[in-house]
C-alpha cells in the first residue's frame, strides 16, 4: 500500500502508507466499513463493540487502550467467553490493537508492540 485516499460517499479521505487515516476527524461509520473491507473483515455487531470502545477510550486518553484493558472491558460487557485475547484475535486477526485502531480511525500504536 502507498499513501492515498479512501472513497466514501463520493468523498476522498486521505490515509498514510499503512492505511491509517491522516485526519482523525474524517472518520465515519461508512469509512470504517470501507477500511474493514480492505482488511478483509466483515463488520459484525461484535466488531463494532470493540471499535466503539476504542473510540471512547481514545476520546478520554488520546491513545488506544492496552490489550488487557480492552479485554477486561469486553469481558465486563459480554461475559468471559468473549473477554479474552483469543476472541479478539478472531475478530481482528492482525492483532486487535493495530487492526482495530485502523478501522476505528485512530493512530497506529508505535513502539515495541
Amino acid at each position, binding site marked *: 500500500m502507498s499513501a492515498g485516499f479512501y472513497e466514501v460517499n463520493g468523498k476522498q479521505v486521505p490515509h498514510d*502508507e499503512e492505511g491509517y487515516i491522516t485526519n482523525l476527524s474524517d472518520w465515519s461509520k461508512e469509512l470504517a466499513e470501507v477500511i474493514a473491507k480492505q482488511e478483509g473483515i466483515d463488520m459484525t455487531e461484535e466488531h463494532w463493540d470493540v471499535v466503539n470502545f476504542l473510540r471512547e477510550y481514545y476520546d478520554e*486518553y488520546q491513545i488506544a487502550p492496552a*490489550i488487557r484493558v480492552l479485554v477486561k472491558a469486553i469481558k465486563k460487557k459480554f461475559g468471559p467467553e468473549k473477554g479474552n485475547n483469543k476472541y479478539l484475535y478472531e475478530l481482528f486477526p492482525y492483532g486487535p490493537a493495530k487492526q482495530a485502531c485502523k478501522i476505528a480511525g485512530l493512530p497506529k500504536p508505535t*513502539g*515495541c508492540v
Partner: protein
Amino acid sequence: MSELEKNAEAAEVAEVPEEALNEPLYFDMEPKDGASAHIRSFPAVEEFQEQLGYPGERPENWQEVALAKMDELRGKFRSFRLFLDICVKCGACTDKCHYYMGTSDPKNMPVGRQDLLRSVYRRYFTLPGKWFPSLVGARELTEEVLDEWYTYYFQCSECRRCSVFCPYGIDTAEITMAAREILDSVGYGMKYTNEIITKVFKVGNNLGLPKPALESTLEDLEEEIEEDTGVKVRLPLDEPADILLVTPSADFFAEPHIDGLIGYAKVFHAAGVKWTISSYASEAANFGMFIGSYENMRRIALRIRKAAIDLGVKRIIIGECGHAWRAAYSFLNTLAGPFDFLDPKYPVPQHICEFTWDLIQQGKLKFDKSQNDHLKLTFHDSCNVARASRMGDYPGGQFDIPRNIIKAVCNHYYEMPEGTTHEATLCCGGGGGLLTDDLMELRKKGGSPRMKALKQVRDEYGVNKMAAICAICKAQFTKIMPEHGFAVDDIMSVHQLVSNAIILPGSIQEKELMEEQGQAADAAE
C-alpha cells in the same frame, strides 16, 4: 486446577508433534542476488526528521553533506574507521547473519553489508581508492548507492552476531549505525524509528502514552493483582521513592510484556521496597542508539537522569528490554552521568533480573514452582543483553541470571541447540529498529533461524513456551510464532513466570499452599 489435571495437561502438550522436522538447522546457503532488494521500510516524513535535528528534505549538496558526515564519524569513532580498514575478506561472517539465512541476499552477508559503505569510504578517504578505484572496489557516492544503503542498512538489526565470528571482531552494527546517521544527515531517515523518538520527546515514551492513560492502566493492574492474590500490590507513578523503575513502555500496553510488569510489581512488593515509575521517563528504550545518533541518544538518556533527581531516588532499575539494557549498562553514565547522587552500594543502573535474583539468593522470595508445571520452557537470549552488556559481577552473568530465575520458578527448563544461544544467540528478527509492519517480510525471514532452533527443542523435549527479557523480542515473536505452528502466547516474559509462581505474604496462594501442605502432612501421619 488440581495437581493431577495439571500434570495430565503437561503430558498432553509434551507430546512430540507428528510433523517433527528433520531438516538441518540452517538454510540453503546459495546466494541469490537482489533477493531482498524489494524490502524497504517507509522513509520518515519531514516533521519527524526535523524534530530530531535533521533536514526534512534532501539538501542539494547532499553528497558533500554525506561525505562530511562520514569524515566526522571516522574521526570521532576509531572503531568505525578501524572496521572499515581491517577486513581481509576471510568469509567467516558470510553465513552468520539471520537475515542472510532468511533471505539468501548476499548484501545481507555481514561483509556484503559492510562493503556497501566501505566501497564509498575507500573512494574518498584512502589513497588507492582515490587513484585506482576499480582495483580496490571503490565507488562513487551516487543516488543509487544512497538508496541501496537505505534498503540494506535497514535490513540489519544491529544484533552483532557476526562480530562474534569475525577473527578481527568487526562489528557490523557500528557500520550500520554510522550509515543510518549519514542517511539521516541528508534527510533520508526511517519513519518507524524517527516517529518513535519524536514521541519520546513529546510525551515521554515510544508509545505516546500520556500520563492519565498510564495512571489508569496502572490502577487497573493494581485491581487485577488484588483480585488474583487478595494482596494490595501498588504500581506507584511519580511518587517519591528509593527506586526508579525505567521500563519499556510496551510493558504498559502489550502482551506478554504487561505480565512481566505485574511480576516486577510483585517482586518489589515482596521485597518491601519503595519504588516508582516516572511518567516523564516512562521509556527504557533508546532508539537513538538504533539510528547511531549520539545526540538523540543523549537527549533520551537525560530524561532518566532528570526523573531520578526529581523523584529523589537512590537507585535506578531497568525492566526487561534488550537494547535499553545496553544503552543503560554501557552508555548511561557517559551520556547522562555522573550519577553520584545515587546510592553507591548498588550498581548504576541495575537490571530487574539482578534485583530479583539477588532476592532469590537471599531467600527473600517464596515460590510455588508447581504453578508453572504446565509449561516447558526455553530461554531466548536477546542480542543486546547477550553480546553488549553483562549482569551480576562476573563475565557471563547475563546468561546465567535470567536462567537462574527461570529455574527457580519453573520445574521444566531446556536449552535450545548450541550455537543458537548465549554469545551466539540468534536475533528475533525484529531488533535494531526493524520492528515495523512495513518490514514484516524481512522480520519473518530473519526470525526463521530462531524458529527452527525452537522447533528442535519442541520436537525433542516437548518445549511449549519460550521466555525472553526484551520488549522487541516479545512483540516480534507474538507476530512470527503463529506462522511456525506456535500460539501467539507461547512467548512469555521472564517476570511473568515469576509472577505465576510467587507466593506473596498474606495472599490467597499462601493460604492454599499452607492448606495443601497441612493435608499432605495429615496424610503422611
